[in-house]
């Protein structure tokens, strides 16, 4: 083959498998969203309708569900990002070694969210270890007087699960970069007389900003759309959006199915808005000098 031609074709051959999988992903999402508009070709339904979205938005508990899910995802991702950056900074400072990183980062990465929900139940349910400790200390007089984590409307158990999982994840994303930046630039700043705290906030953190923002976005979208944890620990009312959508999805009626897909459309829409905000901020940051 002509050398020039081959070098034009090569990149497309390289990305072909990834493109095929991405197309399948996009097809799946688009398919779901179209079903929410009543377009279900394999059933012969091709007329778009807003009925299911209307039904979703007139439902009294929907706005509460959206707010609740947004609150869970936002508080989990903000706290996890803060904690993860702090963890990353602490690891960089003390150089805790391979074994420490294995325990502190790899083990949480390996643990599935569902198992972490079990951890939280074992610790914070009415008969959990924390209630027992409080009882032994004379602070509560029965297991009923402990505010159990199961089904708590404030969702603090769900947030705890995400913190246990995502603080190490954010640290995993940032720790290598942070230690490199620390070696290269923070040392220079320290030599010029900056205090460690000042160095961290005005040198290391700005240099790691993009990576931290990316990790935040991943954690937010995950916590917003994940089914397992709110299903295991969430309240009956309000339900998190993914749980609400799956409840409708499982019902045999076609209308419920389309309705579930409308809820999926709302979920995807909110995540896309958050992503657009992220990309806008990133673009503005890129234009700014460091």
């Amino acid at each position: 083959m002509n050398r020039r031609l081959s070098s034009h074709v090569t990149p497309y051959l390289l990305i072909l498998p990834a493109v095929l999988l991405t197309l399948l992903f996009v097809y799946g999402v688009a398919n779901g969203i179209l079903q929410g508009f009543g377009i279900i070709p394999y059933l012969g339904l091709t007329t778009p309708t807003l009925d299911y979205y209307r039904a979703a938005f007139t439902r009294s508990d929907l706005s509460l569900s959206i707010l609740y899910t947004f609150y869970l995802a936002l508080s989990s991702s903000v706290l996890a990002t803060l904690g993860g950056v702090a963890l990353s900074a602490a690891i960089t400072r003390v150089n805790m070694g391979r074994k420490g990183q294995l325990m502190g980062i790899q083990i949480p990465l390996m643990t599935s969210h569902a198992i972490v929900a079990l951890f939280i139940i074992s610790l914070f349910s009415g008969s959990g270890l924390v209630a027992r400790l409080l009882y032994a200390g004379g602070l509560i007089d029965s297991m009923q007087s402990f505010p159990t984590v199961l089904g708590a409307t404030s969702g603090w158990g769900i947030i705890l699960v995400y913190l246990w999982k995502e603080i190490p994840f954010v640290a995993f994303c940032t720790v290598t970069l942070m230690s490199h930046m620390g070696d290269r630039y923070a040392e220079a700043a320290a030599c010029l007389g900056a205090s460690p705290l000042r160095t961290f906030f005005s040198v290391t953190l700005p240099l790691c900003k993009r990576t931290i923002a990316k990790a935040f976005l991943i954690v937010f979208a995950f916590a917003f759309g994940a089914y397992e944890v709110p299903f295991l620990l969430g309240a009956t009312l309000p339900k998190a959006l993914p749980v609400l959508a799956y409840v409708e999805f499982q019902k045999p009626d076609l209308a419920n199915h389309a309705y579930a897909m409308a809820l999926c459309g709302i979920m995807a829409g909110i995540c896309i808005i958050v992503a657009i905000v992220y990309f806008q901020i990133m673009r503005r940051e890129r234009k700014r000098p460091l």
Partner: protein
Amino acid sequence: MSMPNARAYKKAAWIFLVIYLICILVPIAITVAWAFTDYWPWPSLFPLGFSTRGLAEIFNSYSPVGGILLQSIFIALAVSFLAVVIAALSARALVHHDFFGKELFRFTTILPFLIPVTVFAMGVQVAFIRMGLANTVVGVIIAHTIVALPYATVIITDVTAATGARLEEQARVLGADKLQTLAHVTVPSLLPGILSAASMSYILSFSQYFLTLLIGGGTVKTFAVVMFPFLASGDRTIASAYGLVFLGVTFIVFLLFESILKRLGMREHQSFFS
């Protein structure tokens, strides 16, 4: 002048890390304790008896958990292999080539980060049924690979960019052919990233519940799917035993990946993001 200050920060970092490690390890220890006891009544702080009922019930029950475990490991290994190979090819295109649509492609590689997997799972189910991929191991592997691919791509693109093309060019100049260059230069230089991406993909597949449930349709059983109902059940001994087996198996596979890494002489993982 700043020495005592630096020492104080180091001390604070240590205190933070010790508290953090306690928060990570205590719940695991409690789960191990629960897995090996049958009798831990309120308000006792310690289990009041030793029992292997939990593990025995998992492996001796009518459902063949051993086989399910093997199938889950097979699926996860297949996913990590596919994700790594596809990600390495994409990374090569992104780092070493300029082509029309590159930025669009770069954006689409992170799409599964932005749109929740639940939306994808419910939307794609019908398509998988019509393509004959639903309720098959192949279908589950494809679906898991889609979810794992963005992680693998980000990790391997970083390593590819950090390595650069110079080593490969050197090898070619010295007379190595394409295959030799790939085997002796390209793959070894990418190894830390490849193994990091592989273990990440493995974990994502092995712990995937919702997607597996919808695509596998209850026919393709993985350990994460079988375990899930028990976690919400009242029997904490069984639930904890499942958790213990999950963690044990994942940890063993992780150590395997680590030992490969060590044998190949790579000590340090590369960064996850640039």
